[in-house]
C-alpha cells in the first residue's frame, strides 16, 4: 500500500485531512467529546442537532439496536442555543478539525433565528436538520418532506448567516432528488444524505410493548446502507442535471462502517462520509479504521484521490 495516497477531501472550501465525518447526534453533546472524536481520527465533526430552547428529549429507552442496525428516538434533546455556543467554541479551539454545527427548529422563521445565533460561535459549516423523524407529533410532518418548505428553510438560513450551509435530507420521501434540487436552488452549499430511515419499531414480545418510549424511531446502521447509497446516487444525478456537481459536495451518511462502504458512497457521488452507528459497531476509532481502509483500497486500485472516485458509478 502506498502511504502517500491522498485521502483528503473538500467540503465547501474546507479541507478535510480524511473523508470521515462524525454524524450528528452521535457523541456530539459537548465540545470536549467532539474533540475526543477528532483525536480518534474524524476528518470533521458534527454537533448533536441544536435548538433554541432547552429540551430534555424523550424518556428512555431512546436508543436500541437489533441485529442489522440501530433504532433511536432521542427526541432532539438540546441544552439550548446559549450553552451550545460555548460547546462549539470549545470544539473550535481544541478539536483541530472542521466543526459542523447541526441545527433544528420548529418553524421556518425559527430556523433563521437559530442559524443567526449559532453563527456567533463561528462553526466551519452549518448543517440544517430538516429531516428528524422523531418529533413529528410536536413539530408536524418533518420540513424535509416538502420541496417548497425545504427551500424556504434553506433560504432563511442562508439569509441569516455567512457560513456555508449544508442541508441534511431525509430518505423518507417520494423523490429525494426533487428535494435536493429545491434546496440547491434555494442556495444550499452542500447536502448531507441521509438521516435515519423509517421510522421503524421494535416490540418487546414478553411485555407486548414497543421498547422505545416514543414507540417508533429512526433506523440507522448497515440495514440502511443500500438506501443511503441510492439516495446519494439520485442526488448526484440531480446535481449533474443542474451542472452543479462540482460546486455542491455531498456527505454520504447511512450505514458506513468499513472502508468499502465509504468507497461505495464516493462512487455514488459523495465527497465525504458521515459515520454514526459505525461508532457502536467498530468503536470510537472507527474514523481512523475507515480512513485506513479507504487508503488501502485506493492504493490497491490505483485511485489517486477521493475526487477521482466521486460519482464514477454514474453512466
Amino acid at each position, binding site marked *: 500500500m502506498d502511504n502517500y495516497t491522498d485521502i483528503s477531501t473538500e467540503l465547501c472550501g474546507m479541507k478535510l485531512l480524511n473523508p470521515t465525518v462524525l454524524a450528528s447526534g452521535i457523541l456530539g453533546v*459537548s465540545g470536549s467529546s467532539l474533540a475526543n472524536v477528532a483525536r480518534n481520527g474524524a476528518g470533521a465533526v458534527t454537533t448533536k442537532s441544536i435548538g433554541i430552547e432547552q429540551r430534555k428529549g424523550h424518556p428512555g429507552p431512546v436508543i436500541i439496536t437489533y441485529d442489522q442496525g440501530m433504532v433511536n428516538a432521542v427526541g432532539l434533546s438540546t441544552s439550548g442555543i446559549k450553552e451550545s455556543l460555548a460547546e462549539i467554541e470549545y470544539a473550535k479551539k481544541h478539536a483541530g478539525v472542521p466543526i459542523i454545527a447541526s441545527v433544528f427548529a420548529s418553524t421556518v422563521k425559527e430556523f433563521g433565528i437559530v442559524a443567526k445565533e449559532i453563527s456567533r460561535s463561528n462553526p466551519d459549516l452549518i448543517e440544517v436538520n430538516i429531516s428528524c423523524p422523531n418529533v413529528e407529533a410536536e413539530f408536524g410532518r418533518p420540513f424535509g418532506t416538502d420541496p417548497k418548505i425545504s427551500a424556504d428553510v434553506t433560504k432563511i438560513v442562508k439569509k441569516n448567516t455567512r457560513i456555508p450551509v449544508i442541508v441534511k435530507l431525509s430518505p423518507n420521501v417520494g423523490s429525494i432528488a426533487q428535494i435536493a434540487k429545491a434546496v440547491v436552488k434555494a442556495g444550499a452549499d452542500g447536502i448531507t444524505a441521509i438521516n435515519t430511515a423509517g421510522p421503524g419499531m421494535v416490540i418487546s414480545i414478553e411485555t407486548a410493548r414497543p421498547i422505545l418510549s416514543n414507540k417508533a424511531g429512526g433506523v440507522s446502521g448497515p440495514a440502511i446502507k443500500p438506501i443511503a447509497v441510492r439516495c446519494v446516487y439520485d442526488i448526484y444525478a440531480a446535481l449533474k442535471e443542474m451542472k452543479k456537481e462540482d460546486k455542491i459536495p455531498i456527505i454520504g451518511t447511512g450505514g458506513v462502517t468499513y472502508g468499502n462502504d465509504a468507497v461505495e458512497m464516493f462512487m455514488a457521488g459523495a465527497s465525504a462520509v458521515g459515520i454514526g452507528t459505525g461508532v457502536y459497531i467498530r468503536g470510537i476509532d472507527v474514523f481512523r479504521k475507515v480512513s485506513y481502509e479507504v487508503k488501502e483500497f485506493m492504493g490497491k486500485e490505483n485511485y489517486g484521490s477521493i475526487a477521482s472516485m466521486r460519482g464514477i458509478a454514474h453512466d
Partner: protein
Amino acid sequence: MTEQPKIHSIKRVIDEAKDARTFVFYGQLDSSPGQFVNVWIPGVDEKPYSISYQDDEKFAITCFAVGNFSKSFNGMKEGDKIGIRGPYGTRFTTSGIRNAVLVGGGCGTAPLAFLANELRKRKVNVDFIMGARSNEFLMYHERMVSAGVNVHIATDDGSAGFKGFSTELLDRLLAGKAKDADMIYACGPEIMMKKVIDIADRHGRRCELSLERYMKCGFGICGQCCVDNLGIRVCKEGPVMGKEIVKHIFEFNKYKRDSSGKKVPFYGSCN
C-alpha cells in the same frame, strides 16, 4: 450483541435500608464488579443501576427512592416484570490485590458490596468503610460481616459507628490497621471521592473510583455521559476509572450534564 432489554421478573424484594430496596433476579448476568445495567420499567423510563450482588444463579440491584423513576421501581413487587440490558462499562481490578480498602458513601456502597464479595472469594483482606447519613441508611452490614469483611461505619449524626466522614476513617486506617492496603476503591458523592484521591495520593496507594453521569444509551453512542475536558465516556471508558484519569477530569466534583446536555452543579450521587 443486541442492545435490547431482556425481561426479568423480580424474584425477591429485600428492604435494605430506609428508602432502599434490593431486587433479586434469577439468571446469569455475567457481570463484573463496577459494571452497571440499564433498567427499563415499561411506560415509565429507563435508568442505569450498579449491580450490587451476583452469584452463579442470581443477581441483584439496589434502588434508592430519590426521583420519579426510582420511586416507581421501589414500588415493584415480587413477580413484576422489568427489562434489563447490559452489563456495561469498566470493572474494578480484582486480580493481584491482597489488601483492599473500600470506601462507600450512600448509594455508592452498592457496587462495592458486590466487589467486596468478589474480593473475599479471592481471599483478599477487605476493610469496607461505609458512610451514611445515619444508622437507618446503612446497608449490607450483615452480608458483609458474614463474608468476612471488616466493616467500619461512619455516620453524619453518630447514630452508628464513627461520627464524622468516612474519609477520616480511611486516613486513620491507612496509617494503622490497613497500612498494607495495596488498593483503595471508592464510590459515592464526588466530594467524598475527591478526598479519597487526596488521601490515596498522600499515602501513595493505588485507587479506583466509580463515577456517575446522566446516560441515555449506556453503550457509547449518545455522548450524554462524556466528561470535560477529556471527552471520554463514563459508560464506556468508565464508570470505574483509576485516580490518575479522574484527576484529569476537569468537571469532577464541579458539575455534570443533565438529560438536555446542560451543565448543572454537583449535588451528589444517586440519580
